[in-house]
């Protein structure tokens, strides 16, 4: 990973009056430690200086036992560098929002504050994101999860916030997230005077102009979801509508929240994959792979070449399965029933292949630190070759039936346009980012597994609308099929797993590994304390960033647009809610 020049970073921060201590952490890169008060200034400086760290990869917290480290993981696309900023906050501290600097922080900040019990200052919508009122800040270390005995007694299981709050002791469960002196979201001037005023307002604040006809009508609040035919899981959109026109929108999530990050802290490394499978349930191989890569970085283990090929091959098959499950419903969102069922004939073949190799159709539990769980099978090879032949025909048909259709074009072209700047600001990754003209693909720019041996193109579009996102994903499926063919033709002989101990105990340290999942940059950040379970595992959900970006574009469209637009962002609620 290319790293920024330490002296440049130090001088830039010190010129801005930020006291900083910089260290280089193995497996993670440059880490700047700043005080809680100057975290916002540090991020602003890094963004605005020549370093141009204008992309927020992730924002999360770590309970170190003495304080809560708020971690800002930043990237500069222009210089191709990454940096980590850590700011230690007191347990009753206040997190100064950076949403006006990097709007990508909107939802992660809310999540961080509710799960670590911090107050949030300067945020336009400082509400809980994932949990209900009264839920303890469970990512703090002293909050314990249920023991095995409690888990086994399923008769007593129900959501009981008090059970979680039990260990919280002195923390008032109903403590608001908003700092007492924080201005409320409804007032004017949310952002402290003198700070940068962004043009991109979050959906909670952005209001579409009154209806086209300027007629004053009563607005309806329409709760779309969590049970709705086309919200792709349990997403709930609270739409304020004026007739058919959406004037305000807010995405409400958390209906599928299971606390994967907390649960991972009590799991051994090779068993965390079962949790991550259930995060992004459409692309389990990728999340397992991200975890395996992060663990391997800490362990300093290299997985064998055959394992890398298997990882790439199954990952790409999984990518096609995921994209195809997105493409069919994208047509269904627009009302076309046919493509939905046509895509499922290919998906069936794919899931059969994946089941043949891994043993399960979606919850694979296959990629492990050190390699993969099982070797490739001969039956799967025949199935893959058959699939590749069939798919080459079907993809063209599927492409034409929807993309060539004038009605679909009229529905999607010019809708939900993300400019390059907006896409970067909101932390979009993957196909959503590439549809907005940013050529960035972790498979090419940070090669992992066997991708540096593969020959493939990165589909790109400059338009950034729903149609462009659809087209980019379609092309990605073709490229994925190409990679699979290379893998199966060049599958090397050898071991499928490295020699690693039965119980993994990575040395103390931190590691971040990202993979290009079908939804974008899926990262796993592991903090190890040397024991057999991670001290903290952070799962970067690309769909969460896509969701908060899509949310902002809803006002101004129609109800039908809202459905198509949210669908086009490829949100998977298992991953968003975790």
């Amino acid at each position, binding site marked *: 990973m290319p790293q920024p020049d330490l002296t440049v970073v130090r001088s830039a921060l010190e010129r801005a009056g930020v006291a900083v201590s910089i260290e280089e952490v193995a497996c993670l890169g440059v880490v700047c430690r700043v005080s809680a008060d100057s975290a916002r200034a540090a991020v602003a400086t890094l963004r605005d200086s020549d370093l141009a760290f204008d992309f927020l990869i992730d924002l999360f917290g770590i309970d170190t036992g003495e304080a809560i480290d708020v971690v800002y993981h930043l990237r500069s696309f222009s210089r191709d560098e990454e940096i980590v900023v850590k700011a230690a906050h007191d347990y009753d501290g206040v997190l100064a929002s950076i949403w006006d600097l990097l709007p990508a922080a909107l939802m992660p900040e809310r999540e961080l504050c509710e799960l670590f019990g911090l107050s949030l200052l300067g945020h336009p919508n400082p509400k809980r994101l994932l949990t209900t009122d009264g839920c303890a800040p469970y990512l703090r270390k002293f909050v314990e999860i249920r023991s095995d005995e409690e888990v086994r007694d399923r008769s007593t299981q129900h959501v009981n916030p008090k059970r979680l709050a039990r260990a919280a002791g002195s923390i008032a469960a109903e403590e608001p997230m908003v700092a007492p002196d924080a201005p409320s979201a409804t007032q004017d001037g949310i952002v402290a005077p003198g700070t940068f005023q962004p043009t991109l307002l979050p959906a909670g604040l952005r209001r579409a102009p009154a209806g086209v006809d300027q007629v004053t009508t009563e607005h*309806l609040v*329409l709760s779309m979801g969590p049970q*709705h*035919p*086309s919200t792709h899981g349990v997403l709930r959109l609270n739409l304020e509508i004026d*007739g*058919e026109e959406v004037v305000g929108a807010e995405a409400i999530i958390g209906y599928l929240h299971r606390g994967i990050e907390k649960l991972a802290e009590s799991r051994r490394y090779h068993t965390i994959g079962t949790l991550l499978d259930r995060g992004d349930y459409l692309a389990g191989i990728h999340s397992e792979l991200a975890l395996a890569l992060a663990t391997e970085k800490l362990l300093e283990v290299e997985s064998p070449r055959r394992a890398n090929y298997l990882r790439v091959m199954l990952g790409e098959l999984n990518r096609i399965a995921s994209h195809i499950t997105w493409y069919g419903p994208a*047509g*269904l*969102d*627009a*009302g*076309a*029933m*046919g493509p939905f*069922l*046509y895509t499922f*004939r290919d998906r069936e073949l794919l899931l059969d292949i994946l089941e043949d190799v891994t043993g399960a159709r979606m919850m694979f539990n296959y990629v492990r630190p050190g390699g993969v769980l099982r070797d490739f099978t001969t039956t799967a090879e025949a199935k893959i070759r058959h699939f590749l032949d069939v798919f080459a025909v079907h993809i063209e048909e599927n492409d034409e*039936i*929807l993309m060539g*259709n004038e*009605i*679909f074009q*009229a*529905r999607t072209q010019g809708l939900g346009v993300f400019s390059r700047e907006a896409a970067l600001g909101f932390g979009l990754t993957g196909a959503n980012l590439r549809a907005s003209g940013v050529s960035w693909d972790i498979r090419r720019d940070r090669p992992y597994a066997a991708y540096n041996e593969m020959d493939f193109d990165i589909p790109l579009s400059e338009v950034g609308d729903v149609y462009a996102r659809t087209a980019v994903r379609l092309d990605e499926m073709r490229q994925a099929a190409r990679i699979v063919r290379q893998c199966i033709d060049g599958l090397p002989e050898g071991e499928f797993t490295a020699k690693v101990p039965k119980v993994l105990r990575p040395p103390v340290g931190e590691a971040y590994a990202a993979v290009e999942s079908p939804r974008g940059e899926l990262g796993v950040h592991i903090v190890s304390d040397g024991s057999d379970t991670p001290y903290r595992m952070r799962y970067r959900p690309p769909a969460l960033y896509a969701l908060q970006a899509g949310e902002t574009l809803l006002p101004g469209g*129609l*109800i*039908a*647009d809202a*459905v198509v637009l949210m669908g086009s962002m490829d949100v998977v609620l298992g991953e968003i809610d975790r």
Partner: protein
Amino acid sequence: MNTWLIVVLRFLAALTLMLVNGVVMIYMLRKVLGRLHLRLGPMDNGPWGMLQTVYDVIKLLTKEDPTPSAVDRGLFFLAPAVVFVPSLMAYIALPFSRTWVVADLPLGLLFVFAVMSLIPLGILMAGWASNNKWSLIGAMRAVGAQVTYEVPMLIAALPVVMMAGSLNLGDIVRAQHNVWFVVNVPAFVLFCIAGLIESGQTPFDLAEAESELVAGFATEYSAMKFGLLFLSEFSNTFIFSALTVTLFFGGWQVPFVPADVVQPIAPVVFMLKTYIGIFFLMAIRGTLPRVRVDQMLELGWKFLLPTSIAWLLITGLIMKIGSTLAVSR
């Protein structure tokens, strides 16, 4: 025979036809969509699943029918009837053969349009009375579509009326003895687009757009009240297809075959043509995406209305020139 008895019998015949049509069309829809989507459709109940729809009707009839507490009860109960009755009335004017017509109305075409335009009233009632936002939006869309497409549809049918010289559907069919009016392609296309919208077919099924509005105006309905709404929707599809056959495809006639020869099987010919039309409607339903509501209205006001008026004028002009030439020759 008693005149009243005949009236009642004819009415019952129309009602039976409508109900049987509904059951057959639901089965057909499932099978056609199934095959379009590489499936088989229902297969288990009866041979090739033929009894599936019958079971479904029995289920709908015997199901508990809860009424949501916040609905406007009077309108809520009335709405399915208001939707159902006009589509039944439209059957009265359809000529299944030279003699098989419930009422041979001199203004048959106008009658069909008139009663069909009552349906959105029932849909609006259903949407409003349900006290549900999805229902209300769906109902408003239905009314918007109705207002937009009533006029273009009628105007698109007028060239046929001019060519036949009558508004009586039987006369229109007889006028197509050798040449079907589908030769007037633009009129046919315009009529089809308007009719798709009028009968709520797929590229324009905005009133109950499933992926947007859950089930539109029918969201709160269940059991047989839902059954009636559902039945009337299928009935509308049938009427639209039958009307297209009557206006453009020669009704019960087979070209170049004397009417006396066709007469014994005329209703069969008519139903066959109608069901072919329904098949295409179902194929469209299984394939095409849905337009947005503003696009539908734009299509109506900015394209369909001016074009249909223009084509009416052009048809008139061509006919005038044709007849002048014929006279002068």
